[in-house]
């Protein structure tokens, strides 16, 4: 399943490394990544494929959310089709 992930947090060293290594550990493939810092706020969006993972979507989601809570990151993961439907005619 293709999903869009968003990560928002005050900028600091190692946010990408932390999130991406967690994804790698769970076998989630990153297809595309976009990152910027707006007024000190780190904002990253990733297109990922959860189909490469042996974990279920719910497990991946739970792991990301709990990592987000530990490290004060706001992390969302949602199926990609919702964004395509909302923003493309």
């Amino acid at each position, binding site marked *: *399943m293709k999903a*869009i992930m*968003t990560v928002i947090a005050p900028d600091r060293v190692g946010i990408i490394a932390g999130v991406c290594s967690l994804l790698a550990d769970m076998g989630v493939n990153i*297809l*595309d990544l*976009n990152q*910027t810092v707006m007024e000190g706020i780190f*904002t990253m*969006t990733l*297109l990922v494929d959860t189909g490469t993972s042996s974990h279920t*979507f*719910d497990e991946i*989601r739970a792991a990301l959310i709990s990592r987000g809570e530990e490290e004060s990151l706001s992390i*969302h*993961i*949602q*199926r*990609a*089709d*919702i*964004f*395509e*439907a*909302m*923003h493309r*005619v």
Partner: protein
Amino acid sequence: MLNISDIMQTVNMIDHQHLDIRTITLGISLYDCADSDIQKCARKIHDKICRKAERLVATGEEIEREYGIPIINKRISVTPIAQVAASCDGDEYSVIGKALDDAARECGVNFIGGYSALVHKGFTESDRKLIMSIPETLANTGLVCSSVNVATTKAGINMDAVALMGRIIKSTAEMTAENDGLGCAKLVVFANAVEDNPFMAGAFHGAGEPECVINVGVSGPGVVLRALQDVKGASFDVVAETVKRTAFRITRMGQVVANAASERLGVPFGIVDLSLAPTPAKGDSVARILEEMGLEVCGTHGTTAALALLNDAVKKGGVMASGHVGGLSGAFIPVSEDEGMIEAVKSGSLSIEKLEAMTCVCSVGLDMIAVPGDTSAETISAIIADEAAIGVINNKTTAVRIIPAPGKSVGDSVEFGGLLGNAPVMSVNSAGSSEFIARGGRIPAPIHSLRN
């Protein structure tokens, strides 16, 4: 990949602007549950609902997690019970009400609609039995919602039913007096009721519907409000365009969720209801959208025009985003369920008369309005007649969900909690209408009903 700002916009809509799916409603036909023994009929109804809706809540929650979109309510609508129970001996229809309530609890849904009768042209014996059992059923159940259709553009207004419903509403309020007349919050009197409405309390599974169907109601007043805050002072052309664009996005989300639910439950997709449904939460109010257009307080002069624009633009934006649009589709203006409406009533700017005018251009009618407990049944009937006339003449759905709160008077407020919110008690015209209501009979269908 998608544009980063589009992605962040969606995340913000969900996180900060209360964007959600208001309801996934599973419609279930109960025609095959008819039985001459009412206990057997009730058991068949209970079992069929539990069988068909077994996976509804779990599937809804699964979609919620995967798509990251809150789905606030999972609900069930059924064939109007007056039709299903018509062959039952006896008149203990509350047995069926109890079966519906039990089934809803077992399935984990938060409301079940369809304790209903359609009497716009006249009563069957069964319709009468059902209507007479409404107060008891609403007092003894928690999740059952009831509706009665008393008028259509094709048939005119059944004034006997209008008179009866005034008494039924009074009696429902009295039987649920310890909860401020909560039973009346689950009872809607309709003109031109629709068969595929996913929203409560007026949902029922109409006669033309399939065995089972998924209907989805979207929401999103907060998103529209936020979008309009970005075009402050711009002309109404820009306002309309902004609402349309926003409604398109909201509805697309509803369509994606509807498709997913339909596929996973193996139930055909019916419609997306393009409604802007408010909640008592701050930032999720239709009244605040109207105020954002430049009105000091909702209810002041200009409110009807603002609502007309909003209602129309929501439909225009939404209709292109969905394969099938239906239900009520438009902007809801329930008083107790909308933080801005509550404030407008408290400030004295919004009266029942202005709300009536607003119902000419919104999607439903006088909704969740608390009136003094000593309001007579005839006055309530007359309020219903006025609303029905607006619906019948304008070829639209109108409804009355009014709560004559026992023991309360103007200045008091009633508290229902949750999505039903709280409502300041509003004043009604003190001059009587009893001779008008006592006439009975039917107000004939308007000339424009003859379209063939």
